């Protein structure tokens, strides 16, 4: 094989082989098109719009009926509502975005094409996580900034970093978990519907746990606001571990996939 001028063979080895190129390609799909801007508008409209409506409705209620538990301030309840809304909608968004990334490539034949190049299968799968930075920014960071503004307008309070970071950590870990779970299901299932269906079922069940009694969510929010991070931290660690396990199994499964 001859080299071409100043070109030199790529020096990636092992599981990283092809990762940089694939990561760049996947990132470009998000940042190189209008997709990221559409997402900024969509999520701000959806999350902050709903949050604004709920805040407006709650402020109309008598002061004693504004929170479901006496121990939780209106400010805290506002943050709780935003967290729950974000968990549900961004979880569903992550599932919808992730459900076609593996299956779509398997069905279209592009996975077989890419894997005919010197690319490790681990790199092919990990590169799908290139969506995550864009998703975290457009689905969480920007709506959070707008939500802070909305909360300040209604309660005249701004959450401190010690409150914001655990809540954000909870949301980030949830989004990453559902993204990785859907990637895993994409390597196991043959159809997008089944992949998205199972992931959405898990999302609904987990959120039902939080929403039905309000105990878990409110306890976590109150702990966060009072500066006690133990329970939220356990949930965040559990979600991130779950995401890691999903990714690990997905990689192992994908290594045995035939195209």
């Amino acid at each position, binding site marked *: *094989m*001859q*080299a*071409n*001028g*100043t*070109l*030199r*063979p*790529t*020096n990636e080895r092992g599981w990283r*082989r*092809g990762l*940089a*190129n694939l990561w*760049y*390609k996947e990132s470009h799909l998000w940042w190189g098109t209008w997709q990221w801007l559409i997402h900024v508008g969509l999520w701000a409209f959806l999350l902050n719009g709903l949050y604004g409506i709920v805040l407006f409705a709650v402020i109309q209620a008598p002061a004693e009926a504004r929170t479901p538990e006496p121990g939780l301030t209106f400010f805290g309840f506002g943050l709780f509502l935003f967290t729950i809304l974000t968990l549900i909608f961004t979880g569903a968004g992550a599932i919808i975005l992730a459900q076609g990334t593996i299956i779509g490539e398997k069905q*279209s*034949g*592009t996975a*077989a*094409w890419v*894997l*005919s*190049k*010197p*690319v*490790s299968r681990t790199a092919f799968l990990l590169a799908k996580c290139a969506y995550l930075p864009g998703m975290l920014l457009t689905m969480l960071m920007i709506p959070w900034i707008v939500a802070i503004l909305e909360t300040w307008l209604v309660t005249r309070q701004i959450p401190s970093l010690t409150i914001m970071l655990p809540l954000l950590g909870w949301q980030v870990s949830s989004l990453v978990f559902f993204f990785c779970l859907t990637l895993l299901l994409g390597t196991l299932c043959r159809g997008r519907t089944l992949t998205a269906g199972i992931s959405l079922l898990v999302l609904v069940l987990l959120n039902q746990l939080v929403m039905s009694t309000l105990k878990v969510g409110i306890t976590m929010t109150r702990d966060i606001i009072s500066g006690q991070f133990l329970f939220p931290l356990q949930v965040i660690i559990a979600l991130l571990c779950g995401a890691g396990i999903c990714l690990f199994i997905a990689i192992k499964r994908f290594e*045995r996939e*035939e*195209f």
Partner: protein
Amino acid sequence: MVFYKGESGTLLGYDIVRESIAIRQRVGYLAQDPRFYEQMTARETLRFAARFFYAGPTAAIEDRVVEALDLVGLTGKADRPIRGFSGGERQRLGIAQAQINHPDVLILDEPAASLDPLGRRDVLEIMQRLRQSTTIFYSTHLLDDVQRVSDRVAILKQGELIAQAPIDALLAGSDKVTYELTMQGETQAAYTRLTQQPWVSTIKVEALPDRTIWQVAVNDERTAQAQLVALVTADGLVNVIGFGRKQYELEDIFVSLVEEKNHAS
């Protein structure tokens, strides 16, 4: 081109399972129905493919991409999304991406199978150019194509190799020389005379409305040249309007080998 556990063998000296990436580094591959990212342009696709093999300045990568586009005649369409490409253009792009790394071996799976005559001609011309610098290993059912662009041929039947040889050797491989005669008139008596000759092996007859064609296989070429036409026209009832040594086509060889194999099994 993916190798699986349970399969075994070597390619270019590398184990096909354990050293699969090293093989893919040195081999170019085009699937029968190549699929690319539809939203990408041809240039982006080649750039993407090149970066799996090369690092270095962007300009150098671009030079490599332009070289590949020129090779397959897609320079004018380099910046159009692939979703608008015809079958022939996709196939040409497929060849370009397969040889972007100047592979030691280029494997093409039915490269011209689904193309119209113009697309097929283009692909064969590209293969003609590439064979100067790279070993091309390709599968096809289009035997005319094989005869045009191949040096060596391997014939497979149900996964079993039944013949492998340089194409010239394969075409000249029959130990029998065959002459083709095209005649008009009453040929029955001439046929009888020929079958009585010890140097005639077989006669294959094709009767057409206005003429008869014989393929006469002989085992003594010199005697046949001297006597064949004279014997046929001896009674004056036959008018020979064409005579010559039969040029074998690959299709004849293929059919003959496969039939031989069928009879043997």
